[in-house]
């Protein structure tokens, strides 16, 4: 995979075609879909001025997680030359089953909360991962769902960036767990990060 996908983007014109006859309910439905984490509103409108939405659930392809971690797209985005330059924190989920929609909700929440970070460039959704940012700090989420494993890796290019990003990602994950899953998902993180206590946001340190 050398070039980024540009899929997972829905524009309002297309939404109106798909929701034929629901014109009066569109605002309500969009609001609801944002709230339940199905879509995130993107700050950049399309060339015709129509609102656009990110829909991570539309990317159903899977690829080898190892291949993704070493992909040129990822390395270029983080501005590093090899995986040796990555800083990685892994959020591991304890239970045998974690809903697949959870990861998509984390992505839409992070895009929604840090919407102003995408006024110049859209977030990029890829099979097994996505390229995101908070301000000028870039980071990558990688989803590993092989077998019973459900791990979300967060990658940055420097430790300082890692220290900035991890609390925000963790907060989004914990909030979604509490709001949508009644806190039933149990996860902890492993990896190096600065004085970050996951227990403060509802998780456990491994």
């Amino acid at each position, binding site marked *: 995979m050398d070039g980024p996908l540009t*899929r997972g983007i829905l524009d309002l014109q*297309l939404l109106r*075609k798909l929701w034929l006859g629901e014109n009066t309910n569109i605002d*309500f*439905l969009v609001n*609801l879909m944002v709230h339940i984490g199905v879509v995130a509103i993107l700050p950049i409108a399309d060339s*015709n001025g129509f609102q656009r939405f990110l829909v991570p659930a539309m990317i*159903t392809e899977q690829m080898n997680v190892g291949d993704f971690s070493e992909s040129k797209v990822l390395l270029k985005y983080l501005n590093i030359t090899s995986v040796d330059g990555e800083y990685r924190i892994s959020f591991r989920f304890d239970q045998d089953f974690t809903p697949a929609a959870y990861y998509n909700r984390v992505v839409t929440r992070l895009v929604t909360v840090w919407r102003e970070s995408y006024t110049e460039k859209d977030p990029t959704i890829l099979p097994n991962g996505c390229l995101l940012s908070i301000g000028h700090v870039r980071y990558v989420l990688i989803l590993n769902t092989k077998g019973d494993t459900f791990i979300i890796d967060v990658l940055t290019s420097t430790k300082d960036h890692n220290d900035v990003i991890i609390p925000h990602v963790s907060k989004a994950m914990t909030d979604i767990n509490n709001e949508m899953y009644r806190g039933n998902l149990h996860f902890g993180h492993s990896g190096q990060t600065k004085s970050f206590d996951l227990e403060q946001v509802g998780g456990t340190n491994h």
Partner: protein
Amino acid sequence: MLSYDIDDDDTVSSRKRALVFVQFCTQIGAVFSFDSIPGLQDYCILHRQWLLDTITYVVRDFKLHRFCRDCNAMNLNNGKSWTAL
């Protein structure tokens, strides 16, 4: 979907009674309501399947599930919008 719009000249208790009624209907599973979601408090969904069907028009496996309306949607902006999704 029902939006409960109570006139300004109605008393506060009218609104409270309506909300309590909707909350009760939600608790017994008769309707969906969203009293904790900003912007959606004044709506409730009477027919749950409508909501599922509506979301399914957007989020689905397009290889398995197709609808007649897809034909119009696919031609929008010379197919660019469809491809982006």
